[in-house]
């Protein structure tokens, strides 16, 4: 039973407890990542690279693609002697932003030399506008000349001073043939009564409304109040009628594979990676959205080390191997020819190497729509938030 503690004992024990509890956070604050970072002009021995999952070639995926070479990371380490600490710690843009904004807003580093953020969400623009990123050292990136023309002058970084593409992906529609007939248009997705209650869309405004804007015949790269309202009304109607089951993040793919979703808006790479023969992905009839995840160098990261890595990844042969292993789209010129040399069969995968006809159906989001507070509030309201 209780023994009464004297006040003195309580104070002493409380102070001891507080000290013990605060030790881990003090240690973490002092730690700050696995070495590296800093202000020297030569590359370090270590590169700290934070990235999304399933975004790099691994021994398993290379084996499946029939490529008998070490991974691109290992080849980089062998060529430059720089060890890579690869952190798969980014799962969504807002979550990672929240994790790092505290330190970056104080001007502190986060223990990473490269992080990756998406261009069709507002956070990439926030990093750059708040000056939480460092300029690339282009003298160490001669391969920047291999950047495809379509990616050379994006609105958030017109001279490519701060960022380079890591991977691109396409927004489209996927369906599970076990529970549904082919679904090829956003109109069908949002209005076909046979799909009621088994349709998924994304919780990100650029992706979902981008596709609906295209279905409405509007331009997702130049959004007006009228076109935004039209697109939003269409989604709201589908929510109210019970057509849309849920607004998903990364997590729609297993639900689709299980059959709880009949059809959903989906990213090309996810379907390629699942390699489930019952799942099919198409570009919607009225067009799709293409987005790009970009590498940026946060404050406190080592610019020479990061730039050296970026230059390595922009060689066509290395990029081709990466694309075949990661199943996402590279922004390097000549990557498809290089891929054909590595594995002709895998190089014919149009999800990873889209034809120019597919690319011509792709559109990009309007950054003004992504950063508008009014639009964001209305978008969240449709989701009940």
């Amino acid at each position, binding site marked *: 039973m209780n023994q009464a503690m004297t006040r003195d004992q309580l*104070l002493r024990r*409380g102070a001891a407890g*507080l000290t013990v509890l605060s030790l881990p956070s003090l240690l973490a604050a002092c730690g700050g990542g696995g070495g590296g970072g800093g202000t020297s002009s030569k590359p370090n021995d270590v590169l700290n690279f934070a990235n999304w999952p399933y975004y790099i070639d691994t021994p398993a995926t290379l084996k499946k693609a029939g490529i008998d070479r070490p991974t691109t990371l290992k080849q980089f380490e062998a060529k430059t002697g720089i060890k890579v600490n690869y952190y798969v710690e980014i799962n969504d843009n*807002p*979550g990672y*932003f*929240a994790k790092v*904004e505290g330190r970056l*807003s104080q001007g502190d580093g986060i223990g990473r030399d490269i992080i990756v953020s998406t261009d069709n969400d507002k956070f990439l623009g*926030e990093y750059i506008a*708040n000056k939480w990123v460092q300029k690339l050292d282009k003298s160490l990136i001669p391969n920047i000349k291999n950047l495809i023309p379509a990616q050379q002058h994006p609105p958030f970084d017109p001279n490519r001073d701060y960022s380079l593409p890591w991977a691109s992906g396409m927004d489209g529609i996927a369906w599970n043939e076990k529970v549904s007939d082919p679904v090829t248009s956003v109109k069908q997705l949002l209005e076909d009564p046979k799909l*009621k*209650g088994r349709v998924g869309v994304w919780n990100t405004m650029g992706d979902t409304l981008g596709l609906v804007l295209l279905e409405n015949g509007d331009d997702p790269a130049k959004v007006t109040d009228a076109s935004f309202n039209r697109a939003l009304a269409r989604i709201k109607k589908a*929510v109210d009628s019970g057509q*849309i*089951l*849920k*607004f998903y993040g990364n997590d729609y793919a297993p*639900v689709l594979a*299980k*059959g*709880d979703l009949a059809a959903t808006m989906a990213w090309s790479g996810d379907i390629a990676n699942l390699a489930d023969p019952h799942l099919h992905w198409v570009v919607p009839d009225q067009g799709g959205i293409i987005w790009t995840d970009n590498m940026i160098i946060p404050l406190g990261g080592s610019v020479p080390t990061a730039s050296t890595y970026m230059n390595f990844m922009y060689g066509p042969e290395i990029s081709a191997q990466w694309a075949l292993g990661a199943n996402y789209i590279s922004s390097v010129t000549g990557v498809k020819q290089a891929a054909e040399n590595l594995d002709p069969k895998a190089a014919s995968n149009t999800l990873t190497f889209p034809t120019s006809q597919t690319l011509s159906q792709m559109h990009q989001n309007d950054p003004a729509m992504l950063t508008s*507070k009014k639009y*964001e*509030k209305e978008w*969240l*309201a*449709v*989701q*009940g*938030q």
Partner: protein
Amino acid sequence: MLWLAIFFLVPMGFLGYQSLQSGDFPHFHFTWEFSNYWNVLHSNHDGGYREQYIRSFVYAGIATAACLVLAYPLVYWIAFRAGPWRNLFLLFIVAPFFVTYLVRTLAWLNILANEGPVVRILRDVHVLGPNGRLLATTFAVVSGITYNFFPFMALPIYVSLEQIDARLLEAAKDLYASPTRAFFRVTLPLSAPGIVAGTLLTFIPAAGDFINAYFLGTPNQQMIGNVIQAKFLQSLDYPTAAALSFILMGTIMVMLLVYARIVGTEKLTG
């Protein structure tokens, strides 16, 4: 008092300070912005979040009642009838907590899946229509909350029941009380502190929950926790998120005072 100051007053003070700021991320300024509070109390149609507040309290209330109804018989049995096995059964109650909250909730996605056994059985016996589903419904969200907070209700009631002196029940029997009467006149009142503690420990965190609505619900099931999360992480609108949190806390505190007045504060301390 030092504890209270460090772990409660300082964070609350900072939250209150932040709730009266205005501006765009990351440049917020303190401007006595009481409109942050006023704006969020309107209905959804007018740009506020009143429906989510009401829904959160309704869901938390239903889940608390469900937890009570489910937990009480279980822990009664464990306290009085389980004998040497009681620790094992207590372990069963607590065991899901060895798995993280997120994963526990995700497990329900599999349990309530359309192709899973639960839905299939319910469709076969025509409780659900042929295309009926359990996921993405109010039922799924409230069930998830009930499941996740069940130990918070069960364990305090168990502690209360275990402390009941068996001789009191013997005395009741000697005084010609039937078992039912003995329960209502002796056991139940003596377990009241546990019930009060359990309902508080369940209702208060459940009202602010967002994980269950996020994974198991549609836009029509979103709770105030989801709104706060979206305001904080997606909109980067920290002042509004802080104001929403303060209103939630304030409302719960008022409910708590009313509750304490009704049950009498002696019951809280036993």
